[in-house]
């Protein structure tokens, strides 16, 4: 279906597709694929069209990066299907690894969070899921790595403690997928990832780097890992670094770490020694919110007791404790979308089931009122249709060539609204006139019998302001000034307006057969026989006449 037509910004949202292998998912969730697929959409997902035997592609919304992995999806499904509800508990075991943050990263990429996850056994779906998760987080949360970049390493290949500092671009190491040592400067020029993300480091004279006790490189964030710590089939213990410029870095770390914990990994803490003080990561403690049951009931339109509301939230994997008429809600550490209590209430509605809500018409009483422009448009449309004209609705995007040059009209720079990055040379500006589009429609319809008479009503832009125009044209072997003059006269008779008609200078029409329409001493339009050069520039070979009228200024305030 036409994505381009979707409202409320749907099509420009970055949507992440997660590939779920049924067998893997069934095992993690503890339910059959039939049960899962019957309910998953009601949790908040778009199921792809794939009819594959062993997997399904599911789109999750960009506010839920914790669902970008099959582990995260399984965790949510367990709650939603009442298999395992409430806050997931994750143990963080005290670890030995420390990472020192040098103050040199402050200007280039100040934030870092790390964790160690041990005892992993990677199956194919698990590795695929981890890679996809990393990529989706880079894109979704990380704004294409600018805000967040994640590195995953085989920790057995390096020796802690690690150091995060900004190094001179001449520093050399072997980047992932290369077998030779390159300077960081050359990586940005020669490595595919370097070329892809070099812009993030533009303007900095030192680049971020993570090295081990021996000076061996783990990562050059946000560009590329070192080849040394590549994750291979028999990797069991991981070091994870997440760097960036926004505290969302720590959410990304939690999302990755908890997904790995769901796979049975043992999470160990890392001491991060920063100039401004030490921190221990990962921090998997829940955020605590207080909500009033009454607020939830009022917003959603159901009527739940505190206990029932707690059940709905636990189904969405929140922790919830009843405190009088309110709840204390524990938000899982991987949720990056809870900004406001309404975010919690939406989850409560999902946990309750959108399909169980009772649609109720509001009692708001108002009287509808059409916009005065639309009333006018409908009058103008009725007149033109009565005169035998067919309505068209051409694009408003056009080019200077079509809008001015082909029309023998000079480009009026101060009038034109140009777009900065046109996608095609046919669409570089918003039209200042509708007639060119009508001639274009004639041009693509030359195989249909003549006469053709068409009109269009719509917006034009002049000096950045929207105006309302009517344009009409007629093409056939006998089209002449008298015909268009009759149409103009009929139009204004019906509008009860007497325009003054004076000779025109409009280059689109033939000299001596062109006129301007004046109302109250102001030019509101022009009409005439199209200049043969205009006709030819649109590829037409029959006489044509046309008129264009700016009608929004005919009536003060747009009303009669």
């Amino acid at each position, binding site marked *: *279906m*036409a*994505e381009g*037509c*979707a*409202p409320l*910004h749907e099509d*420009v949202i970055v949507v992440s597709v997660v590939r779920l292998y049924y067998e893997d998912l069934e095992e993690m969730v503890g339910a059959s694929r039939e049960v899962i697929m019957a309910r998953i959409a*009601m949790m908040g997902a778009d199921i792809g069209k794939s009819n594959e035997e062993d997997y399904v592609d599911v789109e999750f*919304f960009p506010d839920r990066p914790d669902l970008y992995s099959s582990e995260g999806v399984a965790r949510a499904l367990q709650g939603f299907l009442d298999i395992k509800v409430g806050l997931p508990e994750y143990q963080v075991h005290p670890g030995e690894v420390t990472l020192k943050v040098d103050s040199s990263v402050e200007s280039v990429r100040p934030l870092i969070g790390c964790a160690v996850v041990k005892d992993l056994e990677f199956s194919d779906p698990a590795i695929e899921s981890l890679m996809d998760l990393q990529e989706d987080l880079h894109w979704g949360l990380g*704004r294409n790595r*600018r*805000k967040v970049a994640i590195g995953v390493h085989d920790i057995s290949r390096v020796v802690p403690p690690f150091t995060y500092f900004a190094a001179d671009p001449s520093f050399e190491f072997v980047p992932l997928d290369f077998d030779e040592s390159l300077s960081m400067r050359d990586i940005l020029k020669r490595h595919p990832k370097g070329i892809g993300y070099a812009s993030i480091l533009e303007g900095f004279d030192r680049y971020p780097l993570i090295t081990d006790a021996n000076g061996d490189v783990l990562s050059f964030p946000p560009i590329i890992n070192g080849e040394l710590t590549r994750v291979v089939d028999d990797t069991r213990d991981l070091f994870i670094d997440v760097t960036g410029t926004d505290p969302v870095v720590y959410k990304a770390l939690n999302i990755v770490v908890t997904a790995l914990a769901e796979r049975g990994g043992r999470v160990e803490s890392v001491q991060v020694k920063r100039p401004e003080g030490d921190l221990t990561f990962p921090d998997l403690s829940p955020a605590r919110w207080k909500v009033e049951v009454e607020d939830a009931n*009022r*917003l*959603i*339109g159901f009527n739940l007791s505190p206990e029932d509301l707690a059940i709905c939230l636990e189904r969405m994997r929140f922790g919830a404790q009843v405190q009088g008429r309110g709840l204390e809600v524990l938000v899982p550490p991987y949720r990056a979308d809870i900004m*406001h209590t*309404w975010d919690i*209430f939406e989850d409560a*509605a999902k946990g309750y089931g*959108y*399909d169980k809500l009772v*649609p*109720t*018409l*509001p009692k*708001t009483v*108002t009287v*509808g*009122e059409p*916009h005065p422009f*639309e009333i006018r448009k409908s009058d103008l*449309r009725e007149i*033109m*249709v*009565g*005169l035998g004209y*067919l*309505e068209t*609705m051409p*694009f*408003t995007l056009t080019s200077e060539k079509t809008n001015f040059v082909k029309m023998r009209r000079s480009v009026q720079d101060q009038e034109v*609204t140009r*777009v*900065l*990055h046109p*996608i*095609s*040379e046919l*669409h570089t500006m*918003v039209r200042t006139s509708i007639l060119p589009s009508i001639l*274009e429609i004639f041009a*693509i*319809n030359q195989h249909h*019998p003549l006469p053709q008479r068409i009109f269009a009503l719509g*917006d034009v832009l002049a000096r*950045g302001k*929207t105006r309302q125009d009517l344009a009409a044209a007629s093409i056939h072997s006998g089209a002449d000034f008298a015909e268009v003059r009759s149409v103009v006269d009929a139009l204004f008779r019906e509008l009860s307006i007497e325009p003054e008609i004076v000779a025109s200078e409009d280059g689109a029409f033939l000299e001596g057969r062109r006129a301007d329409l004046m109302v109250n001493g102001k030019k509101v339009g022009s009409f005439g026989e199209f200049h043969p050069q205009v006709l030819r520039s649109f590829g037409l*070979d029959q006489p044509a006449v046309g008129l264009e009228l700016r009608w929004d200024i005919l009536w003060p305030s747009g009303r009669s």
Partner: protein
Amino acid sequence: MPSEEDNLSALSPRDRQVLKEISEGQSNPKKIAEKLEIKEVSVISSAEGLAEKGLIRLDKKVEEVYALTEEGARYAEIGLPERRILEIAGADGVPISKIEDPSLKVGIGWLKKKSWAAVEAGKIKPTGEAPPGKDEEILEALHFQGQTGASAFDPEALKVLKSRGLVEPSTCKSWCFEITDAGRSFFRRSVEDSVTFRWDSISYINQITSDMIKNGNWGGKDVYYKGARHEVRPYDVTLTAERIYPGKMHPYQRLLSWMREIMLEMGFTEIKGEIVQPSYWNFDALFQPQDHPAREMQDTFYLDTKADIPDYATVKEMHERGGEVGSTGWGGTWDPEVARKEVLRTHTTSVTIKYLADHPNPPVKAFSIDRVYRREAIDPTHTPEFEQLEGVIMDENLSFANLLGVLKEFYAKMGFDEVRFRPGYFPYTEPSVEPEVYIEGLGWVELGGAGVFRREVTAPFGIDHPVLAWGLGVGRLAMLRLGLKDLRLLYQSDVGWLRDVPLSTRM
């Protein structure tokens, strides 16, 4: 089997004239039309009738013809890019870096392919050999004589031009008539036997004149007029007539008008706003973070202008720290300069939020149906501009369940009796919902999006009651209702389609 007698009377004068021309060896409908001073379509319609009666043979030929595209026409005038580069290069050559114009750059590859020039050390060096190519001959010929049959040209060169998008093919129907033996004998006999059939019978009246009405002495179909008895020639009333077409509203406009009526019936006030909006109304007022991917220039048409924006203190505070509604905000620093950048509105919500900011007191019910802009390449299901319908209700004590109620009612009025609701996500609503309607033969189809405006959106403008909002891409609905596979047809309309879509099409 009709007798020849029936055949005779069934022929209109025009049919007879056309048959006469064909019997005299005229085979081209255009020429016949010119000679008889009638329309070519009339000749063809007569000829089809004659062919049905077996009096003539009718050959329809379909030929592939080529014409210049807009780009091709330009090159026909100013020369192919490679030819123009050659002119710029002269005998000494020119550095590649000098060729900056993107429309010229494409010529570099062709220069090499045609061996007109070599590229050495970043410099284009003409080989000195650049005879006019077959492709250039074709461009010139098409420029000079217009649409031409493919057979006239070198097929290889034509293929290359087509792949470069400089020429485009279409099909051209031509007709050829020839009299049959039956037609010939019919024609001969009818001339011999002028008693039963006379070509220009004066005893028949074709057109009744005003004078005949006033002064004729009328019986059944006979009239005694100017001293003679005449008969009004009977027509075969079952024959088809020339097609005529009424002026009509665009079918898509009929859908839009109908949806407007539904909204007005439901008590909504219609609102409109500017196409050019500052990012402030298009994004920031809707709590879209300034680094959100949807704001990037690959999705949005930015202009090179900046607008004045209203006092933004509350919006800035909401983005940075979450204002006073208990939100976390986005953190970071909100930059008014980013908010001043003007865009072609990417959604009608920019108009809605401005209207709500101007009308913060309940109740408000407003809607708009207008064009919005996205930086999308054109293809059958994407256009860079399209219509959105959007409705909002703001009042005391409204709930998400009320939104579902409004949606159900709206879709029912649109003719969709079965509606269901799925969780959705939109950056400025919470909760959000994706309504789906059941369409026979298609199943459940997602149609629009809806939600309650976030507090982060409404609070900065002093709007303290819930705002229920929903939107709908109307083009998608038009495709469903009009059975269109190609969205472009709505905007770059085929006149034949506009003429043929019946007014009675159920929207």
